[in-house]
């Protein structure tokens, strides 16, 4: 009897969580941390003149592949936009400093390297385009 109650409770909670996550996943939002900057030292690559899309990934992460396809597509067809992918597992100091909790997390940097937007989960193509600084 108690087992049945546990099953029903788990399925209800997981459904609620799944729906909540699906609604939020990949949304591009304003970066909360004020005035954080990243530069070539941290990224290992030069900044894009208009924007840099910094993607944190891990090996066991299927949505990271989706995010990679989306972001590299935007970088390839937009002047001054660069896509940089960072292996989170091997840059834990940066991951802690930027409070990255899961992958993929994408940071949108402006031309000066300031973090202006952030997306957790694979972002949608149109949302990434709309998030680019002018």
């Amino acid at each position, binding site marked *: 009897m*108690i*087992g*049945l109650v*546990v*099953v029903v*409770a*788990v*399925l209800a*909670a*997981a*459904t609620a*969580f*799944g729906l909540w*996550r*699906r609604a939020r996943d990949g949304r591009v939002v304003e970066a909360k941390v004020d005035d954080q900057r990243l530069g070539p030292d941290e990224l290992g690559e030069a900044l894009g003149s208009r924007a840099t899309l910094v993607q944190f990934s*891990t*090996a*066991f*992460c*299927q949505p990271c*592949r989706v995010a990679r396809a989306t972001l590299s597509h935007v970088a390839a067809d937009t002047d001054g936009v660069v896509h940089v992918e960072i292996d*989170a*597992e091997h840059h*834990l*100091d940066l*991951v*802690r400093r930027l409070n*990255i*909790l*899961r*992958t993929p997390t994408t940071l949108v940097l402006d031309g000066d390297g300031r973090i202006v937007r952030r997306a957790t989960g694979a972002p949608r193509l149109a949302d990434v385009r709309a998030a680019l600084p002018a």
Partner: protein
Amino acid sequence: MPTRIDPRGPRFAATLTAVVLAVVLVAGSAWLLAVQGLVFAAGALFGLPRAPYGLLYAKLVRPRLGPPGELEDAAPPRFAQAVGLVFAVVGVIAFATGLTAVAYVAVAAALAAAFLNAAFGFCLGCEIYLAYRRLFPSQPNTTEVAS
């Protein structure tokens, strides 16, 4: 080139796993949990396509579906099987030692993960990987100064 698999295979396996784990909870069966543990172990060791549910998928389900629209990397679902195995082992030990409440919690967590994968394509094991690595880095980072 990493191994690539039909993404519907892991989804099917997650569905069967969720059903089995729900039966484990309702029946309070440590034996059935042990069997599911062996299935997890096979998936973690040999990859999902060569584990029981993967073979079942290839034999019974795949022939009725068209070819997959895209393939996915085999490593993430394999890692998730290893996470499932940890929960199953904890559950079996807890059942065997009379810690029934602990067993229920372990199986409930595994059920939640399998159900989220089956219903939403959400891979809990993959999602917690970075959080796990933040706590337990894979190798001592000698360049990082202790603060």
